[in-house]
């Protein structure tokens, strides 16, 4: 039904208006996109590059979204059916080869550019530093905790928290004891799965001095019940502080974790404050124990659940906490790596202390 009425719209002006609105909207969109505080602090040299890539992606993609949205909105405004047009049809336009070539070629060019840039960034953030200037830390994931193993000048020790010097590249060898985990430090931007059977890697250089402080470590791959709680801390220390810490750790006997070499272990202090050197969590953070004045609510009340239990049970509960779970609590919450991060002396002292105070 060819309609003889006047052309429905003045197209030239519509296009002009659309271009103007589109340019303004793009500018506003990019401004918003760049001003949103997207990322956590950028505390590794790798982080800066990834954050810049993000900004480039925002600048490159906002115009695409604006283009589509503006055309949809203008079509709705300009070409919506008005009263009396119920039986009107649009013009039978079947295509336009020139346009189709343009909207194939332009996105293709954009994509080639972005992919090339992303490739360059990838090469940069994974590049190894000059030989000898890198520390290796072995990160082992297990349900539901991370253990960090150091090998410093032949001395091996393990910790429950990650300690790194600022300004020096560190390579993580990531392993898993059971299922797949993912070792992620959001402030460093890097992550990799911990896969049973293979060792995976990545490297970061914490910024000096910007990164000095604490950074959350997160498990990013669903690993079971305690996945959400598999959070620990990376402590970035200044070079002198780190060296001091290293000295303290390597002065201790090899194997096991920290713990006084000769001095008797103060089990009560260990219970309330944890081990500051390895970062082993204090029992008191989660448990209640009247003798130590601890009032933690996350785990079972030790005054109650340990009453009448023998030393072997207490030891098992520390080393393999998921073997027997107190009623009303979930497995997978308590770290299962105290065998690695406490020395045998520390464990024995804790067992002795706990069985004394709960069986009074």
């Amino acid at each position, binding site marked *: 039904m060819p309609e003889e009425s006047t052309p429905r719209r003045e197209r030239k002006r519509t296009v002009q208006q659309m271009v103007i609105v589109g340019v303004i909207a793009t500018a506003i969109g990019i401004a918003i996109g760049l001003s949103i505080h997207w990322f956590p602090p950028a505390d590794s040299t790798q982080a800066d590059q990834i954050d810049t890539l993000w900004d480039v992606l925002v600048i490159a993609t906002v115009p695409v979204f604006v283009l589509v949205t503006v055309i949809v909105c203008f079509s709705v405004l300009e070409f919506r059916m008005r009263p009396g047009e119920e039986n009107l049809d649009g013009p039978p336009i079947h295509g336009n080869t020139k346009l189709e070539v343009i909207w194939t070629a332009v996105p293709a060019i954009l994509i080639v550019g972005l992919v090339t840039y992303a490739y360059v960034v990838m090469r940069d953030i994974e590049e190894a530093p000059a030989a000898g200037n890198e520390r290796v830390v072995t990160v082992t994931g297990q349900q539901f905790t991370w253990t960090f193993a150091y090998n410093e000048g032949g001395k091996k020790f393990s910790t429950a928290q990650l300690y790194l010097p600022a300004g020096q590249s560190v390579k993580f060898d990531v392993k898993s004891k059971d299922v797949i985990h993912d070792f992620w430090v959001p402030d460093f931007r890097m992550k990799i799965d911990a*896969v049973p059977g293979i060792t995976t890697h990545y490297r970061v250089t914490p910024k000096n001095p910007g990164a000095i402080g604490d950074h959350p470590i997160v498990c990013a791959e669903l690993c079971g019940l305690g996945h959400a*709680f598999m959070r620990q801390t990376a402590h970035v220390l200044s070079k002198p502080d780190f060296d001091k810490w290293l000295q303290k750790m390597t002065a201790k006997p090899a194997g096991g974790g920290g713990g006084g070499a000769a001095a008797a272990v103060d089990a009560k202090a260990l219970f309330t404050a944890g081990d500051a050197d390895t970062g082993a969590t204090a029992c008191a953070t989660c448990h209640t124990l009247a003798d130590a004045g601890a009032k933690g609510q996350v785990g079972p009340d030790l005054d109650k659940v340990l009453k009448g239990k023998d030393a072997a049970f207490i030891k098992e509960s520390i080393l393999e906490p998921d073997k027997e779970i107190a009623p009303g609590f979930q497995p997978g919450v308590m770290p299962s790596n105290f065998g690695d991060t406490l020395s045998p002396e520390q464990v024995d002292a804790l067992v002795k202390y706990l069985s004394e105070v709960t069986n009074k």
Partner: protein
Amino acid sequence: MPVALRVPGWWRALEFTILGVAFSYALTIGLRALFGYDPLLDGEAVLAVALLLTPLFFLVGIGCFDYWFYWASGRPTRPEDHSGHGARSWRDYFRVNTDHKVIGVQYVVTSFFFLFVGGLLAMLMRAELAAPGRQFVDANTFNGLFSVHASLLIFLFVIPVFAGLANFVLPLMIGAPDMAFPRLNALSYWMLPLAGTMMLLSFAAPGGSFASGWTAYAPLSTSAPIGQEFFTIGVQFAGASSIATALNFLVTIITMRAPGMSFFRMPLLVWANFSTSLLVVIATPFIAASQFFVLLDRGLGFNFFNPVKGGDVLMYQHVFWFYSHPAVYIMMLPGFGIISEILAVKARKPIFGYRMMAFSLLAIVVLGFTVWAHHMFVSGMQPWIRVPMMVTTAIIAIPTGIKIFSWLATLWRGVLHLDTPMLFALGFLTMFTCGGISGVMLAMIPLTIHVSDTYFIVAHIHYVLFGGSLFTIFAGVYYWFPKMTGRMYDERLGRLHFWLTFIFFNLTFGPMHIIGVQGMPRRVYDYADKFATWNLVISIFAFILGLSTLVFAYNMIASWRGGPRAVANPWRALTLEWQVSSPPPIFNFDAIPTVVGGPYEYGVPGAVHGVFKGAEVPAPAGTHATTTAE
């Protein structure tokens, strides 16, 4: 024996289900006795066998195999008896029926049931996530909630609802009296409720429902409690259903087009389902394989994924994603087809660049098989694989871009009828563009290293599957509602539904981009305190989004029961399904149509897509359309 237990139907299905359970017990106990295992009764073994066999017994009982059994045993099969064809009352929708229109409605209604169940699970998740720490479910239940939510919505909603819509519409569109294999079609449908019931039943399993996500990564899934098997086996039935339907579509499209319906006169919905079916037939066996690996690892100690015994953990992911990436397109291409139909009709213009639209679908099919490992950028696989996968992933944006721009050009200078289907189609255009953009961002390896496994991914897939797929599904359901039910839906409620969905969808999933980049991992039931505010906000908007679906449910139910009668062609569309009455006659066409032109010749004076020769070309029931070609 009472008649009810001998004729196909629910009583016989119940009888056979009980038989199936009994047989599973007998088989397991018998085999264990034979091999001298102790104890004879092993719950997990019985369950695995029962989950595999009982559904088959049920299918026999309800009557899916009667015809084939008659034929195989040499009894008369009564080929001209169409008693199992067409619906005469609502009860016929609860029986094995071979009419593609009945099956289409069964599919759509069943999958929408699972949409509501899956959505309800999402509401429970958002309630738990409203504040850090434990609210009202424990970690195990929460992991189960998101696992079942995703599995139901992927395998029991998005994939089958598209199969359902196409089941109803596609034979009509190509001028065929039915699908090529009507009995196979019925069998495909009946496997679905079984798969869905199985996944829901997992909540009753000791140790809770399956809780390793819809991805069921090994070795978490191979070491999980028994609830995992409900997923492992449920997926097999959903997958088998999907493959059988896809074969049916392929054969129907290739062999049963009306005279004159060349491939390049087919509506784009037919092209889209042709492409999707190719993907399903090639890719779906891979997820079946991945889950059989898990089943064999769990049940029989095959150690496919046990590194201590030489197993390879990463292999699971490669096999799984070789299906599950193409699955993303299985969940999107049919929606592309729906949008093409609606935009052409509602803008009163031909689809811009019809051939490029068809070719870009095929390009996506081919490219879709070359990108699977982009889900594994941080999996620890060989690092070099990441680069070619990044390139192919980015390239997929080009055919997708061609489709978006062609749709925009279709709108331009049209006469836009802004009713509910059109609003959802336009909403799809903008929201899917958003999801596509975050998809291109995710192709970039360095960015993905940071955001993979975070809420940014959750936001991305919901923009693609909710803002993308679900918007097209809503659009399609509103668009074909008059044809399927013979009634008109309530336009005002439809628009209300659109605006509520559009606004609260963005408010729910938009902020997830931000908390994802900030560092909130996905699949956690507890999170750092700094994400608390956003999570509360998201939860509140999610509840409103959930409530908005009630408007849709009310509109559909009330309009189906008492809406005004629909005319044959309320949208003045050219495609063939609108040239017959609403709802269509039992064998679709009283006279076989001859196709004389393209499907979208809007604005061309006097153009028609198909002509009906009238009474001189009678179409005997059950005859193939092609046999009457001149």
